């Protein structure tokens, strides 16, 4: 046990805590690199969705998990990113490599505007304020000629230097690199002064202010950064789906992202990844199960289609009832169990 004590700040702050973590990370990256050669197209599409969700969820976790500012309107930031890139690449012919950061910045700009009320609103009031923002953005997208309402907008496929990424496999490599960058950036941000200020604001904003953290600047910064992530995720989703309508970015998307970070674990990067994996993966898992039973029990599969949403809800509820800290809590419990085995503490 003694070997796991940390004796310096450097060790405590290290990105990769020990050899175990490093080994598993290398194995995981290797698995990601070879996955496209082992999985079929459908499975790759699930992986791609998960990668996009990881980027959005990490961003939301920076805002909600780290800074404690609730956003129930995150779908709106994804929508802004998606529509920005649709207009930029589709109408103006801006290359994807440029429109990705631009749509992130556009979302960040609006995020900072939304962040201003957060200086006055707290807790549930902020949650409902952002929820209202989400509805208003969806309404504007429906009723503005520029965004073509219900008909939606076409989005060209993503391309790098004029070479389009069209197959699921090519898209996967683009997405996986971006997701890794996003995770690394977030992980590093959390270790800096900014990240610690975010945590201080989450734990007690009055105390944080008393200790000399400018609340206004950091809250707006958190909203901006988080919206940037969401905008980038929205941009990628738009290029991935190739056609966007306002309905894609409704309340259920915002709630799905909240579900990811709550189920994964608030205030942890690993939690956001696990949550994104679970929330984007489970619906496909249920579909897969239904397919398995289709031949043997045709009547049952009809029922399960009705219950798909319900089973999804049940998984969320059960996870939280048994571990309110989410999957990260489960992970930590398991870690402690193995570390101290055969003792209970």
């Amino acid at each position: 046990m003694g070997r796991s004590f940390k004796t310096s700040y450097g060790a405590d702050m290290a990105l990769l805590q020990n050899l175990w973590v490093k080994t598993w990370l290398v194995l995981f990256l290797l698995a990601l690199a070879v996955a496209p050669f082992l999985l079929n197209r459908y499975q790759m599409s699930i992986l791609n969705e998960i990668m996009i969700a990881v980027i959005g969820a990490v961003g939301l976790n920076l805002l909600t998990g780290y800074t404690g500012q609730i956003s129930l309107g995150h779908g709106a930031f994804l929508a802004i990113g998606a529509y920005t890139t649709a207009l930029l690449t589709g109408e103006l012919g801006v290359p994807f490599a440029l429109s990705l950061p631009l749509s992130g910045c556009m979302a960040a700009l609006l995020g900072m505007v939304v962040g201003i009320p957060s200086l006055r609103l707290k807790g549930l009031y902020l949650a409902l304020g952002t929820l209202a923002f989400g509805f208003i953005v969806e309404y504007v997208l429906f009723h503005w000629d520029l965004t073509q309402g219900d008909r939606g907008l076409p989005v060209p496929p993503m391309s790098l230097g004029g070479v389009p990424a069209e197959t699921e496999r090519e898209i996967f490599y683009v997405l996986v690199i971006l997701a890794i960058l996003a995770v690394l950036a977030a992980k590093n941000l959390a270790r800096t002064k900014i990240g610690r200020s975010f945590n201080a604001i989450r734990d007690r904003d009055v105390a944080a202010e008393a200790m000399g953290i400018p609340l206004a600047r950091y809250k707006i910064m958190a909203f901006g950064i988080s919206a940037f992530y969401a905008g980038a995720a929205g941009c990628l989703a738009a290029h991935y789906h190739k056609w966007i309508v306002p309905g894609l970015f409704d309340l259920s998307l915002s709630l799905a992202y909240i579900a990811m970070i709550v189920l994964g674990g608030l205030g942890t990067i690993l939690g956001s990844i696990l949550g994104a994996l679970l929330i984007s993966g489970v619906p496909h898992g249920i579909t897969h199960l239904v397919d398995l039973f289709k031949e043997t029990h045709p009547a049952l599969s009809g029922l399960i289609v009705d219950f798909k949403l319900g089973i999804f809800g049940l998984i969320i509820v059960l996870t939280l009832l048994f571990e309110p800290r989410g999957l990260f809590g489960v992970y930590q419990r398991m870690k402690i169990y193995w570390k101290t085995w055969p003792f209970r503490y």
Partner: protein
Amino acid sequence: MEKLLEIGLNGMSMGAIYALLALGFVMIFKSTGILNFAQGELAMVGAFLCYTFATLAGVPYVLSILIALAAAAVLGAVVDVVFFRRMVGEPVFSTIMVTVGLASILTSLAGFLWGHDVYSIVSPFTDKTVSFAGVVLSQGSLYTMAVSVLLFLLLILFFNRSLLGVAMKGTAEDADTAGLMGINVKRIHALAWVLGAVLAAVAGIFLAEQSFVRLSMSHTGIKAMAAAILGGMESISGAILGGLLIGIVEGLAATYLSGLEVGNFHFGDVKDVAAFAIMILVLMVRPDGIFGRKKVERV
């Protein structure tokens, strides 16, 4: 003038429904600290229950409402015992997510039991109107308003005059101290859920009276949440006022803004976002709602 009065009255009857739902939110939030995202779904289930008895089983209208309300009360109690008893005091987000999960469970159950079609409840008030001084109103909305006002009065009396109501207020104020004073906190929480579910069912039945019974009627719950926030989330009169305000503003917006076009922007169904626009405006001026009190924070 008459048109304005008509819009106002119709808005108020819609507002009464929002207020009932908002009261349910406030009730559950105040005593258990849980923001219930499934309030609209509870209303939807209540309406479907009433529809089952009144239209499918042919039970007399009043009796089927009573059965539906009793069933809703049981549902509320079950929801509390199964899901929320152990979630009291957990982080806000986890509890919100559990209610969201509950909402999707209720939706899929209702979809399985009653299907995805649009139904209507046949009541003694269907398709009948009243007119006085040139204002035409449906009997359904008059009945909604009358019963709601009665319910509001009853609730206010309950909270101020009855022992149980005062115990609920005490629990909402400080659950630990209330427990020490000999109040059964768990039972109070269950009661809050029962009341919340019954209020939601009443709202659902009224909503069905004014439009239809269908799965998507649960969306009204989100607007009612805006009403509850407008009122300050903690106060009963605030929730009623917030609901009425949203109902009237929606009516006005639907009449005067719907056809407008500014540049290349069409206002269209502006009714659906009016509630949220009002909510944002009010929160900008009063960050704790109209009736909310600012909490003094100690570091």
